[in-house]
């Protein structure tokens, strides 16, 4: 039972001052085992805050990140799943699922987490699952104006992943979940 937080595109301080209060009250240290962050934090203070939630923090570089040392892509294995991480501005057209699927095959992962579009998406294709956690602060994006703050928490338990989607709609936190099972024969 591993809890993995997928979060990104905060754009602090340029486009948003901070995480929404309701999100911040829920994110307490001690509950989450890993954090994967798509990028565009943008400053070190946000990095430190995320690190305080969980020492195991994985970030990839977004185009506005001030720290140039983050990698472009990252892969990690948690439990039975291979996760891939990429900000997504490198994949053109932005947010195109077929192109993301190509990246997924390239990284050879079961779950690809990418951002940049500031829209939550969970999409499945033969090679695996693509998850976009959206923007945790609801920062404006160049692609769309209507942005709801959102992030994703994955509960990895054996061959099964339960994806909890946290969205802030009209000031209220709405949580949905998505179930996903990995077929053990599917080796990408």
């Amino acid at each position, binding site marked *: 039972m591993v809890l993995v937080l997928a979060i990104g595109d905060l754009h602090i301080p340029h486009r948003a001052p901070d995480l929404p209060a309701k999100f911040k009250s829920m*994110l307490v240290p001690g509950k989450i085992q890993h954090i994967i962050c798509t990028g565009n934090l943008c400053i070190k203070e946000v990095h430190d805050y995320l690190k305080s939630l969980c020492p195991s923090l994985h970030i990839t570089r977004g185009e506005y990140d001030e720290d140039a040392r983050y990698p472009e892509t990252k892969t990690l294995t948690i439990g039975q799943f291979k996760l891939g991480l990429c900000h997504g501005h490198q994949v053109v057209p932005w947010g195109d699922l077929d192109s993301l699927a190509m990246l997924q095959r390239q990284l050879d992962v079961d779950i690809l987490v990418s951002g940049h579009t500031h829209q939550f998406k*969970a999409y*499945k294709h033969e090679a695996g699952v693509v998850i976009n956690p959206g923007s945790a602060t609801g920062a404006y994006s160049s692609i769309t104006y209507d942005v709801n703050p959102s992030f994703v*928490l994955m*509960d990895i*338990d054996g061959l099964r992943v339960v994806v909890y989607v946290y969205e802030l709609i009209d000031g209220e936190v709405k949580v*949905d*979940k998505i179930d996903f099972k990995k077929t053990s024969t599917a080796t990408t």
Partner: protein
Amino acid sequence: MTQSRSNSSKPAIISEEQQTNTHTNTNTESIETLAEKPEKEPELMVKKRVPDWLNNSMLSSPAPVVSPPSKSRSQSPPPPSSSHHDLLASYTSKSSSVYSYNSSTVIQPPVPIPPPTFIRPEPPTKPARTPRTDFRDPLTRSSDSDNDISSSVEDASRQTNLIQALSRKIINMRELRRLASEGIPDSAGIRSTVWKLLLAYLPCDKALWSSELAKKRSQYNQFKEDFLMNPSEITRKLEDSASLQNGENTSEGKGLLPRSEIPHGEHPLSLGKTSVWNQFFQDTEIIDQIDRDVKRTHPDIDFFCGDSASSKANQDSLRNILMVYAKLNPGIRYVQGMNEILAPLFYVFKNDPDEDYSRNAEADTFFCFVELLSGIRDNFVQQLDNSVVGIRSTILKLSLLLKEHDEELWRHLDITTKVNPQFYAFRWITLLLTQEFIFTDSLHIWDTLLSDPEGPQETLLRVCCAMLILVRRRLLAGDFTANLKLLQSYPSTTNISHLLYVANKLRSHHHP
């Protein structure tokens, strides 16, 4: 008549004892002469002095010098025939003569309870279940050749008595208690069965055993399922039962994954009080503490702390028991020290040669642990510390008991050297003496504690009092630091049968 029999002529070991008491009958040589000893002056037998039988150097614990290899129980030089058995005989005859002697004095001891057989046999042979033990296992300590003959005779007789008592259809609890208080042999899983009976886990009627056991064990497994599942499994079970039509969307090739509602706001970051997840995270603190303590239990014994799979499994069992107990008792949860009380129980039950009992040791231990703890749980509740039932008042009771039996020592400890009993007695009482002696000795002490009809708490106080009295010489000679040091690391070479004998004698004075 030699009024002042000083012991200066005696060998160095007991030379510390200053016998100003004129009624010294402190040496074995005097046994023969005891009969001819003239009557003593009653007025010198002041009530506040330690009674004779207590003042006997033979009842004192051995000085820190290396004890003679033959493990003699008394400090006086052995009579010419230095066999252990003779010593036993002389001791018995001596004590009975002390009784007859004392009956003529002011202090009237009540009906003298015959001393229980007090040779605790080291197991002369390795127990049959050797595969589970290794060189570090305490129960396979080899015994002296000296003790072999006499102790194995005692052991065998006790064993047959116990087996006989256990083989009845309806077990006579009083008789079992009496036999158990003399000490339970280490072999043939007798201790395991006897403890289960003493802790009221098994009923007296043997015919009911199998049904009771089955019921209790399934109850424990139910507890484990209810309490030890993590929230992922719980939510999975909930939704599996709720809807079976959440189709296998792995069959789909492509498409947006369907989102579904979550039941009752159950998500991992939920802060709600009723949330399964929230409760889970709140419990992790306790689970962490239990885990830490379990790993530290008895690090020198391979059964608990080793690299093998069996010790890991044992640790898991201990952890499960403590977690289920913590969940079932939200008032007291887990307190450090419960693991120490659990350890001997689990050890005894798990090492039962009977396969069935050994496999189900975890469930059996859980219920016996609950039973044992129910009597002493007040010691673990911090809020009750200062109340009538709390640990402070128990320590006070111990202090009063000591004052009643040995005022001189009490005065010296409490007033002169100001050794607050809380410094040493706290651990003695809350942990039922598991930390003061080596593991096998504490098992023997528990035999007596559990079998006494007065209950473990009362008996414990008497044993603690006896522990103090046995080292009285050193305590009287020491200051605060020395006394504290001695009491906090009580000499583990103490002869346990000796100690329990003295504790038993204290009872006879307590209830006139």
